[in-house]
């Protein structure tokens, strides 16, 4: 039996933490445990990469953070956000998800215009001020580095955009809700190299204002853009440190084996 206890888990000052999990367990269907006792702290205005082999529980962990696993799994443990444990029944998950946005593996824009993609959630929330909506659309698209490419075709279908543009639109759509944290689950895995590097540039810029947690299978990508990296194995967070340390000087034997490409 491998040693699955954590080799090293970095921590931050309370004032630096944007989001913290404490002893998080995830049990699919309430019985099949796929994530074990995970306690990680995410630093404000940084990009944290989650790496690990397929099936190691990266998505399971990530999707618990904005409660997207509610309907399929039991999640035990605490998720601390602004001093509040948001993994409780009485938390308004709809409000929570506006503060903790999510971008998925496959770009999933709505079959609506570019403009409506960004404003739909705001309007569904009761925002009627057209001026304000237009401002938010422009701000979000600029922040996602998409404005210049689409400013003349805001009323065209989002489905006509390229995959890379669609993914940046999905980021803009999440930004429109003014989140603090953005969760990204392999956001570049469906994109070509050029779109990927554009997306990476965008994420690096967003670091100024947002805290990002990103699952990736691409080690180079993790090395290129993340500040911190957490390595998952069989549902356990084995090692969590600065990206430099994880890639150059890993503490755990399994981490080292994974980084060197021995498995996964």
């Amino acid at each position, binding site marked *: 039996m491998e040693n699955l206890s954590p080799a090293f888990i970095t921590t931050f000052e309370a004032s630096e933490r944007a989001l913290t999990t404490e002893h998080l367990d995830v049990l699919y269907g309430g019985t099949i445990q796929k994530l074990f006792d995970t306690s990680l702290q995410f630093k404000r205005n940084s990009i944290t990469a989650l790496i690990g082999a397929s099936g190691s529980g990266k998505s399971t962990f990530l999707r618990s953070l904005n409660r997207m696993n509610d309907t399929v799994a039991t999640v035990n443990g605490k998720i601390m956000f602004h001093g509040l444990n948001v993994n409780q029944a009485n938390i308004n998950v709809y409000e*929570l*998800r506006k503060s903790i946005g999510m971008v998925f593996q*496959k770009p999933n824009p*709505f*079959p*609506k215009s570019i403009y409506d993609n960004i404003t739909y*959630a705001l309007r569904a929330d009761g925002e009627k001020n057209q001026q304000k909506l237009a401002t938010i659309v422009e701000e979000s698209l600029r922040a996602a580095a998409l404005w210049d490419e689409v400013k003349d075709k805001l009323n065209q279908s989002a489905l*006509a955009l390229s995959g890379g543009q669609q993914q940046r639109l999905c980021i803009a759509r999440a930004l429109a809700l003014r989140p603090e944290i953005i969760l990204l689950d392999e956001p570049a895995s469906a994109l070509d190299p050029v779109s990927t590097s554009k997306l990476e540039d965008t994420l690096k810029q967003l670091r100024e204002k947002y805290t990002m947690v990103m699952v990736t299978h691409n080690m180079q990508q993790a090395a290129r853009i993340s500040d911190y990296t957490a390595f998952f194995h069989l549902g356990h967070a084995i090692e969590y440190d600065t990206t430099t340390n994880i890639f150059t000087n890993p503490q755990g034997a399994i981490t080292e084996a994974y980084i060197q490409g021995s498995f996964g």
Partner: protein
Amino acid sequence: MTEHQKDRFATGVIYFLVGIVVILLAGILGNILINGLPHLSWHFLTSESSDFQAGGGVRDQLFNSVYLLILTTIISLPIALGAAIYLSEYARDNWITHLIRSTIEILSSLPSIVVGLFGYLLFVVQFGFGFSILSGALALTFFNLPILTSNIEESLKGVSATQREAGLALGLSNWKTIRGIVVPAALPGIITGVVLSGGRIFGEAATLIYTAGQSGSLVDYHNWNPLSPTSFLNVMRPAETLAVHIWKVNTEGIISDATAVSAATGALLVLVVIIFNLSARYFGNKLYQKLTAAK
């Protein structure tokens, strides 16, 4: 045989089979139109049907058919949509859901004559609605609901789960995600469902013989008061549709031009179904484009 020959043989068989289908359909359609169209005239469309002499039209039957179609769709679409949304978005995978699904499947293959008799007993006799458009529309709703519901359910299920995830991840509630994203995305499929069931309703006779009745009563097209017995909008009056008219002319009819009348009515029926089909698709696409910015 070589691979190449086998391939050509299989392709040939497939072309042959599809040819049979096309020839059959074209033959039926052509036959109906060729026999019927020469008898279709403005006079035929605008005059009352006649019980005894030749030269009657189908004005009332045409109106009744369209009116019943509209009423039935107005009643059944919201119910079917609600049930389909429940089944595709909310229902858990348990025995109750399975029971509902099996019931819907069984009901959708119920012979229309049985639905007609059921409608007769329940609406005509028990509820006392008599032979009326209302009884007919309600019976047709029974006839229509199962298939419409499963068609709509299928098209809702066809919307990718990633769309629902996208909505939820933006902090939208389940309902807002369904209403604003899933249903609009499923619209083309929903429209197809409505169109198909519209065609079935339009051609339905057995259900209506026992519920909407046969005798076309006196109808006044200038009387817009739905409560007045002679108004064309009155839902309590008996109403014969085009399909029922064909049946009646050929069974009980004593008019001398029965063949011509039923051929013309048949052609008219086909034409109206085609027009309904095309226009529903046209307006449906317009709506879809408006909701989705699609071109």
